[in-house]
Every structure is written in C-alpha cells, then in structure tokens.
C-alpha cells in the first residue's frame, strides 16, 4: 500500500510492434519519480496503461493499491493526468474547459485552476485555438493539478514551456509534493529530471533498465562545455584533467566533454581570462552508454 504506482511484468504489444515489455515499476508515495528515456522508448505507453486508455497484453498495474483495469473510475478521481500527445476542445476557452472537467469530477467552480492559471500566466478567456503551443501545454498542466490529486501522472509536462514557466511548474510540483501528492513525470531530458526528481526510472526500447536515485546518476552525467577565452589557448593546458574528455581547441575556443563534476576543469580554466562559457544538456544516449554500457541494450 506504500507504493502510489506499481506495475508487475507490464507488457504491451501493438500488433507485432513493441510497446513495453515486462516493466516492473514502483513509485513510492510522496515522491517525485522521473521517467526517463529517449522518444519511442515506451514512456507514453506505460502512462496510458496506468490510465487504462490502452490495455496490457500481459501483466498488471496498480495505482494507489487499486487495479487499473477494475477500478478505473476510482483511480481517475484521485489521479491527475497530463497526456503527452493530446488536443483540446479548440472552440472552448480554458475557463470553459476547466468548468467542464470540474463538472465531470462533480465539483463546481474553477477551484485551484484559477490560481494555477494565474501563476502560469494563462489567459482563461482566450479560445484555445488562439493559444500558442506553450499556452496549450499550460492548459494541460492546470487540468492535471486543478483537483489536487493524490497522484500526478505527467507525460512530458514541460514540453513547450519557456524556462520561466518551467520554473513555476517545478514550484507547483514541489507544492503538490509538500501536500503529500506523488508525482510520476516523464521526460527525455536528463537535466530536467535531475532538477525535480528524487528518483529516476530509466526505460529504453520498451524495457525498464534501471531505477536509481538521482544523485547517483548525476555522478555519471556527461555535459558538453564550450569555453571562450580572451586570448588563444593551447589544448595541452587542459589534457589530463580528471573527467575531461575530447578536448579540442580552436584558437580561443575550447570544447570538451565532462563526466560528473566540472570542478577540476573550472579550477584550470580560471587561470586564464574567460569571456564566455556554455554548457549544453547531457545527451541521454551518451549517459546510457556510459552508465549502463552494453547492459542497457534490450535483450
């Protein structure tokens, strides 16, 4: 009963093509668990199975201790779901849509939706077909949180949100957690999951390959750095620093890859005058290769 979400050998084939295979997943209550994997790995399939939108080929899933096949409506009452790929009623305004959903939940009025929309700077009265994709995503986020659900299942929740709104979204997630909710969110971006999740479940080619604490994953994350200096530098200055690989220097620009902490590299870099520094997000495939090596390959 302590798990908010639990799956046992959850398997889904679409005809002959693979959805997910033998997924044993556990999301403890009150925790933010990130669901990480490249596009097409099976994240959406897993989440749609949890919402009983599609039916497993074999295996089973429970949400809040209830079987998703037999207690669908009870589960949906207590869960907030943000689909990864969805459309909205184009002619409605967000306000009308939230009132419609509130009615389906036997509630009246906007409830928390009003405050959430305000925080995400969502115009409640502009018809949805006039909204940008970022604003549509906000509508999706608000409808998932508006009834203060016990469990939130969010498929790529930050897609299309600008950085400021992402920060607000993460603040809302933290509040939900503080109130005792459980959050299970998917992403294909490692940095994003690191920011918010305590634990991460990694899926690849339909198989759940690992469940790790985020801290442990961070140690092996790979980031690409580009550093611009005031004067030309030589690549020899940066060779042999622990965790630094692929050093290449073009006149005043250094590019390299760093595994884990960048501390050692920065100590060396500051001996020179630095003009600019740019870090790009860790490449998920690279993390897989380093962290799991060949083990991560689906059997």
């Amino acid at each position: 009963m302590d798990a908010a979400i639990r799956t046992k050998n959850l398997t889904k084939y679409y005809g002959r093509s693979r959805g997910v295979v033998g997924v044993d997943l556990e999301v403890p209550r009150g925790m933010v668990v990130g669901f990480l994997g490249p596009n097409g790995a099976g994240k959406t399939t897993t989440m749609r199975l949890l919402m009983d939108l599609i039916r497993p080929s074999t295996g089973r899933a429970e949400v809040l201790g209830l079987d998703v096949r037999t207690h669908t409506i009870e589960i949906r009452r207590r869960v907030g779901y943000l689909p990864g790929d969805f459309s909205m009623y184009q002619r409605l305004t967000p306000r009308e849509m939230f009132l419609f959903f509130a009615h389906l939940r036997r509630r009246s009025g906007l409830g928390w939706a009003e405050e959430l929309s305000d925080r995400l700077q969502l115009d409640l009265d502009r018809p949805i077909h006039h909204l940008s994709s970022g604003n549509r995503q906000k509508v999706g986020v608000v409808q998932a949180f508006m009834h203060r659900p016990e469990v939130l299942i969010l498929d790529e929740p930050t897609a299309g949100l600008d950085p400021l709104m992402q920060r607000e979204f993460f603040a809302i997630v933290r509040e939900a957690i503080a109130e005792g909710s459980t959050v299970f969110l998917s992403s294909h971006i490692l940095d994003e999951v690191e920011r918010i999740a305590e634990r991460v479940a990694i899926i690849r080619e339909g198989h759940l390959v690992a469940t790790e604490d985020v801290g442990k994953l961070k140690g092996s994350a790979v980031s690409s750095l580009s550093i611009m200096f005031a004067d030309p530098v030589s690549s020899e200055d940066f060779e042999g620093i622990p965790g630094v690989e692929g050093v290449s220097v073009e006149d005043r620009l250094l590019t390299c890859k760093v595994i884990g902490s960048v501390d050692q590299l920065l100590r060396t870099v500051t001996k020179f005058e630095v003009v600019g520094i740019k870090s790009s997000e860790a490449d998920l495939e690279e993390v897989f290769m380093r962290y799991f090596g060949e083990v991560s390959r689906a059997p």
Partner: protein
Amino acid sequence: MRHSLFGKTLGDSLRSYPWWLGGLIAYVILIMMVFPFLEEEGQAFQELLENYPAALLAAFGIDPELSIVSVEGFLGTYVFGWLVPLLFLIFAITFGSRAIAGEEEAGTMELLLANPIGRARVVFLKYAAFATLIAGMSLALFVAVYVGGLILGWEMNLGNIAAACLSGGLLGLAFGGISFGLAAATGRRAATSGITAALAVGSYLLFTVGGLVDSLAVVAKASPIWLYAGTETLVEGLIVNRAAVLFIIAAITIIAAGALFQRRDIRL
C-alpha cells in the same frame, strides 16, 4: 448543465444544427406552397406520374395509388417519401461518426477520459444528446408541415402526420445507433461514416427492389426504410410493430456501442 458532457455535446452542434432545422423547415414549407399550382394541373400530373417507370416511383417512395393532389399523396411524394429519410440518415451518419470517433481522432478523448467517467457513460451521454437533436428535428418537421397546412387551409390528420415525423426520428435513432456502434468498435471516423452510408444506400436498394419484384417483397422487410414507412404512416397512422423494430435496433446497437468501446485501446 452547460458544463456537463450532455450539455457540451449539444453545444458542439450549435453551429450546424440551426441550419439543419432551418433548411428542413424552409424546404417543407416552400414545397408545400407548390401544392395549389399542382392542384390545377392535378389530373394531368397524376397521369404523367402513372407513366413513370414503377422503379422510379418506388425509389422516391411514391405510391401511385395515392392521388398526388391529396394531402397524403403530396406529402408522401415531396416530403416523407425521400426527403425525410435522407435528411435523418445524413444527420445520423454525420453526428454518429463524429461523436466518438471524431473526438478520438481529434485527440480530445485522451483528456476526456482522464476524468472519472466510464467509457460506456461517454457513449450513452453523447447518444442522449444525439437523440435530443433528432427529437428536435422531428418536432421541426411536424411544425413545418402543420404551418404549411394551415397556410393552404388543409384538413390534416395531425396524429398521422405526427406519427410519420416520429417514424423519421426513429429511423435516425436506429442509424445513429449503428453509427455509434461502428465508431465505438473502430475509433475511425471515415470508416464509420462510410460503412453506415453504405448500409443506408443498401437499405434503400433493398426497399426499392423489394417494392418492384413481388418475390423479393420479403427481403424488403429487412430494410430500415421499409420499417420507417413514411407514406404508409401518413395514411394509416403509426405502424407500431415496425416502429418498435426501429426502436429495438437503436437500443441494441447503442448498448453494443457501450460494450465495444470498453473493450479496446483508445487510439492516439
């Protein structure tokens, strides 16, 4: 009410529905205004009709035994013979394929079903909204015929006219049920409207052929158009057992739709 699924489904039709009603009423009243001119040439026109091939008459639901210048003969020929079934069938096919499969193809079903509402309930509530719109069309049809008749100073059997309007509605409900059932089973809008339309055309053919060839008369009785029996109803009043069969078709198909929608994956 406005924010319920039933209310929302009704609201979604608000843009097109007034055109259906308006078109229906305008056509019926305008065509009825032709009646006085027809009356003058009544005998000649009747003879002309009698010289038409029987197949053509049957296809348009025209009963050559009935005088074209009688109330029933005229309404049967110009309104209830072909216009009413056609209009109700098209409405049922369009609405039925849109309600479930259209919502699924548009991608809104995913969000709708994130709420605590059962799939069968979604089907039934949407069908209830559809049935309400069909009832509105039957009523509009009755009002149009009644007003047209008043203008013409007809002596009308209002009970029989109401019965014919009801039969049209029941035909719509039956095909709506078929359309909901196919949409619930497949989730595909084009396939749903295509198959339902083919069934409607098949029903027409069956009815027409059955009316022409005596040995096939039994086969025609399998046609929902025969069950609808617009012109006969105008003359005889509601043919209860035929109306009941249409109602049963609607009931069975919609219950099946609820069950079928439960069974499958929602399409993405």
